[in-house]
């Protein structure tokens, strides 16, 4: 902006009011020329607020789209985050990523004719792996027994009843809370001892919540398929973090009631939520029974009839019969580290292919598959949820644009007046844009507040036990999106308003 501004003529009029006159201010305005608008942002935002306040109801309806978009974005992200956390917890509970499970599998089609020569997974494999698979640090053979437990006059089918080596305790991330794990000697002697999880205790003797105290059935006799076993140990109770918190809260409340002198009249009753056993993964882990591998083989696989043992009888020393089935149900391997997983898999495969004479009747299952599945699931959930929330934000943005367009066509005359008294194109542009952004920001902030309510609401409907987790990042992203939507929605109306011809705008009725 370059022009020769003449000094004010001597007959200049303005009396006592102003000394500097327009020229000084004009040059000041000229220095502002680099900015889009010479009006201070605070003033523009103030005008925006006033405009929104003048149309309270309309503005509220407009904001509603943004409010819903932002809160659904936050709620969706909180929900997925909660699921992710639950899944990761469960993954750690079953033993982490360094675990490989070797399972029997049907032969591939081109080997079907060799079916009768397939040996299955046996102790032979275990010994071969111990000798040659250097990347495998631990091997835990498992022999599953389909079992019905009975004791205390009740029956229970556990998720898994399995004969294992003592090493299985650490392989499967079990922790003993009471008693002891059976040792190599118990295994060698095929003693009738077992270690149970809390689910078995809960089903046969009653859970602490039901009876009001914790029963530790160490030394009790447990009949597995009618065969008597002595319980020598019990695992700790596994549960997800949210379950633990819920349980502790209930316990604290009960203690508080007791302290207040309210006498509980009998055992605490299940309040209709009995069907829920907490997170399923954790329930499965609790419903585990371990016995020595040899015991499982001797008692249940060696061709001896599974029933017909009287209480108290039966011990080691049974010779495996000719019809005995020496096959293991699976092997659990632990490798040196996640980073050597592909190499370790290849190594184990080579060893097993040799012991199985080239017949591929086994397969590997790694937690990595599971972890991948979790990640894929989380990614999909995030993507679809984000898409839906994004669409609702977009709809909110379209709502804003619609209202801003309606608003400027109502205000054509106002824009003409503002231009005639010196508003530059940029001033009008910024004013309309700021109005749109103010609506979006107000909607965004309200949406953030509303999201907490929405998260709580969803949590009460949610089929999973994973409490939604609202993260600061999701709040930030949702808010940033709402501002972005406000800017985008305001652009077109702002350009339209700024381009209005002042003369025509002034004539507009």
């Amino acid at each position, binding site marked *: *902006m370059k022009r*020769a*501004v003449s000094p004010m003529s001597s*007959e200049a*009029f303005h009396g006592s009011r102003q000394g500097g006159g327009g020229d000084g*201010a004009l040059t000041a305005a*000229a220095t502002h*020329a680099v900015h889009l608008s010479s009006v201070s942002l605070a003033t523009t935002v103030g005008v925006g607020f006033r405009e929104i306040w003048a149309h309270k109801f309309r503005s509220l309806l407009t904001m509603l789209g943004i409010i819903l978009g932002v809160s659904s974005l936050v709620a969706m992200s909180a929900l997925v985050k909660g699921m992710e956390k639950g899944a990761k917890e469960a993954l750690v509970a079953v033993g982490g990523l360094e675990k490989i499970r070797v399972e029997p599998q049907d032969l591939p089609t081109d080997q079907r004719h060799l079916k009768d020569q397939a040996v299955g997974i046996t102790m032979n494999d275990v010994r071969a792996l111990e000798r040659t698979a250097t990347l495998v640090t631990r091997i835990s053979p498992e022999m599953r027994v389909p079992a019905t437990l009975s004791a205390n006059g009740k029956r229970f089918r556990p998720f898994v009843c399995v004969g294992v080596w003592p090493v299985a305790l650490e392989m499967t991330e079990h922790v003993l809370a009471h008693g002891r794990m059976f040792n190599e000697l118990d295994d060698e002697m095929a003693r009738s001892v077992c270690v149970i999880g809390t689910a078995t205790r809960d089903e046969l003797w009653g859970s602490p919540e039901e009876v009001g105290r914790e029963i530790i059935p160490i030394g009790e006799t447990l009949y597995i398929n009618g065969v008597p076993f002595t319980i020598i140990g019990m695992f700790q109770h596994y549960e997800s973090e949210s379950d633990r918190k819920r349980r502790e809260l209930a316990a604290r409340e009960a203690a508080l009631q007791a302290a207040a002198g309210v006498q509980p009249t009998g055992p605490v009753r299940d309040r209709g939520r009995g069907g829920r056993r907490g997170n399923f993964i954790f329930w499965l882990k609790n419903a585990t029974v371990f016995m020595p591998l040899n015991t499982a083989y001797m008692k249940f696989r060696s061709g001896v009839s599974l029933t017909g043992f009287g209480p108290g009888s039966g011990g080691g020393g049974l010779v495996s019969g000719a019809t005995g089935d020496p096959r293991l149900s699976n092997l659990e391997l632990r490798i040196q580290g996640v980073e050597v997983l592909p190499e370790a898999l290849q190594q184990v495969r080579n060893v097993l292919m040799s012991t199985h004479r080239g017949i591929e009747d086994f397969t590997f299952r790694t937690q990595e598959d599971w972890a991948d599945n979790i990640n894929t699931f989380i990614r999909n959930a995030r993507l679809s949820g984000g898409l839906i929330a994004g669409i609702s934000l977009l709809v909110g943005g379209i709502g804003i644009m619609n209202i801003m367009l309606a608003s400027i066509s109502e205000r054509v005359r106002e824009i003409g007046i503002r231009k005639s008294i*010196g508003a530059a194109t940029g001033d009008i542009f910024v004013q309309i844009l700021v109005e749109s952004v103010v609506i979006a920001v107000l909607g965004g902030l309200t949406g953030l507040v509303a999201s907490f309510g929405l998260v709580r609401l969803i949590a009460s409907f949610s089929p999973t036990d994973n409490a939604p987790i609202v993260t600061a990042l999701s709040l930030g992203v949702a808010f940033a999106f709402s501002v972005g939507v406000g800017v985008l929605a305001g652009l077109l109306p702002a350009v339209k308003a700024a381009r209005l011809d002042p003369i025509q705008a002034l004539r507009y009725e």
Partner: protein
Amino acid sequence: MALVELRNVSKIYHLGDEEIRALDDVSIDIEAGAFMSIIGPSGSGKSTLMHILGCLDSPTCGTIRLDGTMIQDATPRQLAAIRNQKIGFVFQFFNLLPKLNVLQNVELPMIYSGVSGKERRQKAMAALELVDLANRCRHRPSQLSGGQQQRAAIARALVNNPRIIFADEPTGNLDSHTGEAILQLFRKLNGEGRTIVLVTHDPEIAAVTPRRIEIRDGKVAEKVDLTLAGLDRSPQPGSAP
């Protein structure tokens, strides 16, 4: 040097193949401190002339010098700044913003020149006092009479202390008594040294100004300058029709 110098200004519109010369080779000087009227029937081009003089529109050809600045090739932003700083507009329909009170309306031009809030209030009150409307500063335009609204509009036109004020049919929407009061206000402001240009179709209103320019078919049909002839009637307050 005159405050405004219009030289050979034309404004040409094209309606299909037809060429419409809204202004045809107009040259006008407006001296600082002048009180003049631009008169002409509707469609004569006087509004176009005022829009060009007021930097709302740019000419097709010709040059305009306003207060030493050549404005025919100024950018829109520069034109906005000139409108803001050097020109005040008074309209037939007042053109106050209905959602703002009188004080806020008067402050509006200073918002676009970046004057601080406190100074804005001070100057706006001073301008309102000049038009004798300070006691109504918190009223909405809709709560004022037509004459009061026009005075508020004049205060708004004055508030940035412009070099020239254009009044487009300022009395057109007022009864004759109120209209006369507004004209007197203009006369008083001119007496204080302000340059005022009335745009009207009404010869009676134009008669109050010592200088008159008549526009017909886009051309200057007649220039009357009573000050040169020493015939300035300078009507006494209340004597004009």
